[in-house]
């Protein structure tokens, strides 16, 4: 083969590989978006995951004979209802002064009914399998005085996972950010080259290489069992904190290294102590870099699954405590996984995938914007 032909062949291979890399990304994102988009809606983002059924008591309103009301208006509860496919009464509209807004649950706490809640039982009357709307209206209108209603609030949303993810981000960073940043400060500003420093660096490099499933194993043994935290927010966040350490430390170290030596010299030359110099000159100037470190950390938390699976559990609920019995909760990523693996629901999984993609793209964009501004300022 002539040299030219050979060159062209190789050139083609190079272009092909580069094209393949981009194509893969397009295919992955395309797949997630196409598959998941039908699942995305306001309800999906704001609703609870499970249906929630509650008994409430309501003081029925005085019956007023008013005409000209919409179809499906129930004057005893001052609300408009419709029927769903199970023949249950779905609330579609509430009057300002509807007694449903003053409803109390069995523990006598306020439990205001809202739109899209479903009434499945009124007093002893089951409201199910009703075929005509006027039947439902008239049976509900028959109520008077203090009545008990069984209300189902429909789920199908990812709100608990969003909240759990936010908790997870908050707690993990609360632990790992100070430790990581201080540790970088120690390594750059205090430590003298020697055995201690190389040991610390060796440890950090090793941490960075450990796969998250091993962190999960460790967390499930140490935090969950030995520390008796159980599957919980705190056990998950502590495990994540260790995972984040290498990222935060190395990124902060880079930021500190980039600060000119003259800043340190002139501050010390003015009679500032080392701590004052770090506090007033070094950390403020390293702030953009530290911010990038935290953003990378958030990206890692949002994407983490294997370690959390073994430490924070897979329950789709908002954790009610830091640790203990009711403290477990699934993050978005974990829920996405269980949806695929256990519930075989790829559509909902991909809908979560879209949310994750949006977060990741935002983080990428933000950290790049910060770095770019930093470079501009340095020039």
């Amino acid at each position, binding site marked *: 083969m002539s040299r030219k032909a050979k060159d062209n062949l190789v050139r083609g291979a190079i272009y092909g590989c580069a094209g393949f890399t981009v194509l893969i990304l397009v295919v992955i994102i395309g797949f997630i978006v196409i598959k998941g988009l039908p699942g995305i809606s306001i309800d999906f983002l704001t609703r609870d995951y499970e249906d929630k059924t509650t008994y409430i008591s309501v003081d029925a309103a005085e019956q007023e004979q008013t005409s000209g009301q919409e179809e499906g208006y129930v004057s005893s509860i001052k609300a408009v209802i419709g029927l769903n496919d199970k023949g249950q009464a779905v609330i579609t509209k509430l009057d300002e002064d509807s007694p449903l807004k003053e409803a109390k649950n069995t523990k006598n706490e306020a439990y205001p009914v809202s739109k899209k809640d479903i009434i499945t039982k009124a007093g002893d009357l089951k409201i199910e399998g009703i075929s005509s709307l006027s039947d439902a209206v008239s049976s509900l209108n028959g109520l008077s005085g203090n009545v008990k209603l069984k209300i189902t609030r429909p789920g199908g949303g990812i709100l608990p996972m969003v909240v759990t993810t936010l908790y997870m981000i908050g707690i993990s960073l609360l632990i790992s950010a100070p430790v990581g940043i201080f540790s970088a400060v120690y390594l750059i500003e205090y430590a003298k080259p020697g055995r201690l420093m190389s040991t*610390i660096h060796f440890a950090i490099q090793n941490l960075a290489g*450990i*796969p998250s499933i*091993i962190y999960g194993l*460790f967390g499930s*043994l140490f935090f969950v069992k030995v520390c008796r935290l159980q599957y919980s927010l705190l056990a998950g966040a502590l495990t994540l904190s260790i995972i984040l*350490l290498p990222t935060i430390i190395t990124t902060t170290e880079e930021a500190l290294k980039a600060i000119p030596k003259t800043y340190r010299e002139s501050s010390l030359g003015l009679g500032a102590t080392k701590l004052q110099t770090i506090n007033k000159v070094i950390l403020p100037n390293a702030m953009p870099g530290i911010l990038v470190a935290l953003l990378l950390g958030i990206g890692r938390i949002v994407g983490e699954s294997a370690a959390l699976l073994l430490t924070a559990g897979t329950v789709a609920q908002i954790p009610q405590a830091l640790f203990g019995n009711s403290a477990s909760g699934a993050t978005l990523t974990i829920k996405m996984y269980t949806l695929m*693996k256990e519930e075989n629901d790829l559509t909902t999984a*991909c809908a979560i995938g879209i949310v994750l993609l949006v977060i990741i793209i935002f983080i990428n964009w933000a950290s790049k914007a910060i770095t770019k501004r930093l470079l501009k300022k340095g020039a």
Partner: protein
Amino acid sequence: MDRNLSRNVKRDVWEKIVEGIFLICALAGVISVIAIIVFVFYKGLHPFFGEDAYSFWDFISGTRWAPSQNVYGVFYMIAGSVLATAGAIIIGVPIGVLTAVFIAEMAPKGAVRVIKPAIELLAGIPSVLYGAFGLGVVVPIIKEISPMVQGQSLLAVIIVLTIMILPTIVSLSESAIRAVPKSYREASLGLGASKIQTIFKAVLPAAKSGILSATVLGVGRAIGETMAVMMIAGNPTQGLPNSIWSMVRPLTTNIAMEMSYASGRQQEMLFATGVILFIFIMIVNITLLKLTNKEGDK
């Protein structure tokens, strides 16, 4: 202002205390590594000692995993992990390096502006999403063409792992290629070599150690990947993979699959699986450190 040069003891003590706090934070990494090793190894080596010890040889050479019958063999998992990793490296490294060559040497500015963010994004995508992609796209396609009934297979794992290690390979190789001094290129071009020849005969050999580090890092990422692989590997309870269509059960997924409900011996055996995985990772880490240190010496 105090004009006397005597020491301010209170301030000096405070500075020392804060330095101590910084030091303790810096030691958190070391403590974590030690704690992880101690706990995982302690729990993982436990079943092989004492009264009711399980034969380590049976564990390491066995090809069946049946906790209910007290049979724990991980050899077929090791084989699965190693084959999947090797496959991903064999396909992923050439693609990644050539992509890096494209970015560093050939691409017009506009193309770089597309490809680099794409690769950064690829690096940031959570592994569960790769799993979804594998499950929704790769597995069905393989099911069509495979002689076996299921699409979950070694091949599916290799494909997804290849994609997952690409960003690592590309970005590290790119920096290695960019670090090659311009004079090498000029010298080669000056001798009448074509651009392509220059890249392959002068630039890539000079970037060799950087590309090697990228490869080793890719090995680490591939062998440790769990969630993406779990959904597409098939995870059989026994049997060495005998073709790319066979299902595999990598070490990582073995742990993730059963950890949530395992207890007693079975749980310890999952930790033992973790120990094996850890040893692989240690080898990777140390190789990488050796490589980068050697680079630093140069």
